[in-house]
């Protein structure tokens, strides 16, 4: 006979408020195999745990049932408690009488009945629990960081500084991300390039960082500690070891296309360096526009290159590497404004986005930092800014708040006034959100010292009238409709996830929310982890955020990765599948359903009536199995079982509830 102990937790009033603890204890006492029943206000507290430890010894308990909160909350805690008292941790069973019972019910009587049923099921299951021993898996002591904006740069530097090797993969020809496009940054107005460029150089020169620009991750397999990753290094068409960065090729190339870095405001060549401070400072040939690749003639760059670095024959390279952990930092895009015809974006050159504004006012931008109306190259006098273009808009845009636009618009107002004291800014807003250190003060400065005029209301329509733009809006505080003759209109377009975010998530086996931002494991308590062990998140790929937050998150993700890499081995979860070779018919239905490719076939030599025959069987790779249980449902003879969730155990639970 088992010696099962049941411990019922009050969780303060969380459980005790809705469940009659005394009645539960009385009922538990009568359950088969139960030799001890106790209760306490907070079972997870030190007093609660020591009560469990003492009782295990005193009553010689061989199974525990803790009736408390969700196992996601405290299963690990109580397993440790059991282990401390010498009991195998997998002999602990949790009855979730909080999330599954007290929190979702109101009537005490019914909730009590349900709590008893849940405990009865747990007791029945516990009777079948077996001692399990966790194995160990080795950890590859190298990290992969995907995306080299400020988040990726910071995470890579932190991990590398801790002494681990980091591979930093960036899709575009240079690292830097969006921050490299910005002019000055709120709330301190330090120049973006001045604080970013040194970090970019650090990345390039760090002995532990391998930089793969113009590269993409193509395949990710494996599991925490042992990810197998394929990286595609796209052909740059330049021999990086030869190129001296002299730039002659850039001058001579005859082909011009829109510069992505400058938001299409000016052209770049087909062979190009995205911006002067690019890292690496080596050109790349954009084969989709290069005349040599399209028409087979030209080759001007090859002819003029003094270092003979141009290489048209270069092919994509596939690298296969192993990593212990991955940090995902792929950043954000801004919303395309096709759906917002009333703002006239794309119909008139003086209606621009905030990101274009950043480029126009940036000293290294297309106009050398002179803010001009693109229609006539004159300096604008009246500039209208519109908040929330596509943000907080469930009809045509994104329902969420993009979080940074209030602040960067205030920044734009200040920068403008500093540069052009005669200019006047008008800002249409719905709410001004300045939650952040020094943020509200910054916004008030824009109003009080820099004369920005804020209207509480939004703009209905913008259209050209003569050589001006007529802006029709509203100020709801005065209940007046507003018309402004503007020289320039700047639209704060919503931040959104990268177009391919969902694909990237699928490749890595992590989740995305409805807007394709990557999902963290817990919004409060595990903000930089994902549900896949060993994969971490930082920056705007997880949700809209500014640079301070991005950097903080990158540091946190790096710390998590460092904790992982600093272990030589990891404890594997022993709750994995096992095949009962006696029963397995070798149909291999399980292989089809396993999402982790953890099941393979094997042959077994078996003596049947003195003859040796070969039998086909399924076998589980315990390191790959994630314990999802799909195979157990697919297996017709019931030969494959998940340890700790075997068919016997589940049926015992069902019986206990139903019979």
């Amino acid at each position, binding site marked *: 006979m088992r010696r099962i102990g049941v411990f019922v937790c009050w969780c303060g009033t969380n459980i005790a408020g809705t469940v009659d603890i005394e009645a539960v204890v009385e009922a538990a006492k009568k359950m088969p195999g139960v030799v001890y029943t106790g209760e306490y206000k907070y079972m997870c507290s030190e007093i609660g745990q020591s009560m469990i430890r003492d009782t295990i010894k005193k009553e010689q308990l061989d199974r525990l049932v803790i009736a408390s909160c969700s196992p996601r909350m405290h299963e690990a805690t109580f397993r440790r408690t059991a282990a401390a008292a010498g009991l195998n941790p997998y002999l602990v069973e949790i009855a979730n009488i909080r999330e599954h019972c007290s929190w979702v019910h109101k009537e005490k009587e019914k909730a009590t009945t349900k709590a008893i049923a849940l405990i009865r099921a747990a007791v029945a299951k516990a009777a079948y629990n077996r001692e399990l021993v966790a194995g160990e898996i080795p950890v590859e002591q190298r990290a992969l960081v995907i995306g080299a904006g400020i988040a990726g740069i910071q995470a890579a530097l932190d991990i590398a500084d801790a002494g681990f090797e980091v591979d930093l993969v960036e899709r575009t020809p240079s690292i830097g991300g969006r921050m490299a496009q910005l002019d000055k940054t709120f709330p301190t107005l330090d120049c973006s390039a001045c604080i970013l460029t040194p970090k970019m150089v650090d990345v390039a020169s760090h002995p532990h960082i391998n930089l793969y620009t113009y590269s993409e991750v193509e395949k990710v397999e494996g599991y925490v500690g042992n990810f197998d990753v394929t990286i595609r290094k796209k052909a740059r068409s330049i021999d990086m070891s030869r190129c001296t960065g002299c730039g002659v090729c850039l001058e001579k190339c005859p082909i011009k296309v829109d510069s992505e870095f400058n938001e299409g405001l000016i052209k770049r060549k087909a062979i190009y360096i995205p911006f002067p401070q690019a890292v690496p400072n080596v050109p790349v040939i954009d084969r989709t526009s290069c005349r040599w690749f399209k028409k087979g003639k030209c080759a001007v760059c090859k002819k003029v290159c003094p270092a003979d670095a141009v290489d048209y024959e270069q092919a994509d390279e596939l690298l296969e590497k192993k990593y212990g952990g991955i940090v995902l930092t792929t950043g954000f895009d801004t919303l395309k404004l096709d759906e917002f015809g009333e703002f006239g974006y794309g119909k008139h050159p003086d209606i621009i986005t905030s990101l274009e504004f950043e480029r126009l006012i940036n000293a290294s931008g297309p106009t050398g930092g002179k803010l001009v109306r693109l229609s006539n190259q004159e300096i604008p006098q009246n500039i209208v800014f519109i908040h929330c273009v596509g943000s907080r*808009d469930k009809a*045509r845009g994104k329902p969420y708040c993009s979080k940074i636009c209030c602040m960067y618009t205030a920044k734009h107002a200040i920068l403008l006034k500093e540069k052009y004291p005669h200019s006047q800014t008008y800002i249409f807003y*719905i709410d001004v959100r300045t939650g952040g250190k020094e943020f509200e003060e910054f916004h008030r400065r824009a109003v009080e010292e820099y004369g920005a005029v804020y209207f509480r*209301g939004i703009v*209905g329509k913008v259209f050209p009238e003569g050589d001006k733009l007529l802006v029709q809006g*509203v*100020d709801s505080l005065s*209940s007046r*409709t*507003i018309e402004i003759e503007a020289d320039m209109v700047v639209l704060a377009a919503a931040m959104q996830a990268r177009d391919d975010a969902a694909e990237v998530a699928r490749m890595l086996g992590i989740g995305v929310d409805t807007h394709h931002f990557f999902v963290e494991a817990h919004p409060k308590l595990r903000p930089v982890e994902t549900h896949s062990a060993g994969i971490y998140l930082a920056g705007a790929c997880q949700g809209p955020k500014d640079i301070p937050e991005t950097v903080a998150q990158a540091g946190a993700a790096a710390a998590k990765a460092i904790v992982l890499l600093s272990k030589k081995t990891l404890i594997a979860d022993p709750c994995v599948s096992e095949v009962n070779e006696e029963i397995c018919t070798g149909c291999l239905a399980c292989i089809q359903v396993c999402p982790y490719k953890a099941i393979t076939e094997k042959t077994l030599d078996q003596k049947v009536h003195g003859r040796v025959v070969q039998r086909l069987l399924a076998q589980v790779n315990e390191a790959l199995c994630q314990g999802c249980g799909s195979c157990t449902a697919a297996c017709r003879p019931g030969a494959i079982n998940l340890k700790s969730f075997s068919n016997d155990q589940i049926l015992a639970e069902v019986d206990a509830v139903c019979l």
Partner: protein
Amino acid sequence: MKVSTEQLRSYILKDIAVISGENVVECYQCGKCTAACPVSKAMDILPHQVVRFLQLGMLDEVMESNTIWICASCFTCAGRCPRDVDVANIMEALRVILLRKRGVSRLKTEDVRLVFSEGMPEQGVVSAFRKFAR
């Protein structure tokens, strides 16, 4: 102005919600409807204020306004509202409630005789009667 709980929970507010199919609580008062409205200048209260007064249960303010009779049902506001609130539907519900209750027509046959004879299309006359009379 005093706001009472009864006022917030009045039946007529529920009627307006049912008849218009719109939930005024979804509005966050950005004013886009007003900014978009081509006839807001002639209104005594602006479209976003109509929604605001309904949020607060201040019915008299909207029922006595000229706004609901000036609204042209052009749907510009509805197409641009970031919260998917169809103000045109709300305006119509308010008109309908008044017309049904009072049975008072805002438009008489004699009002239209002249324009009709001047060539105003049937479509215009019929729409006007559908909107302003019962």
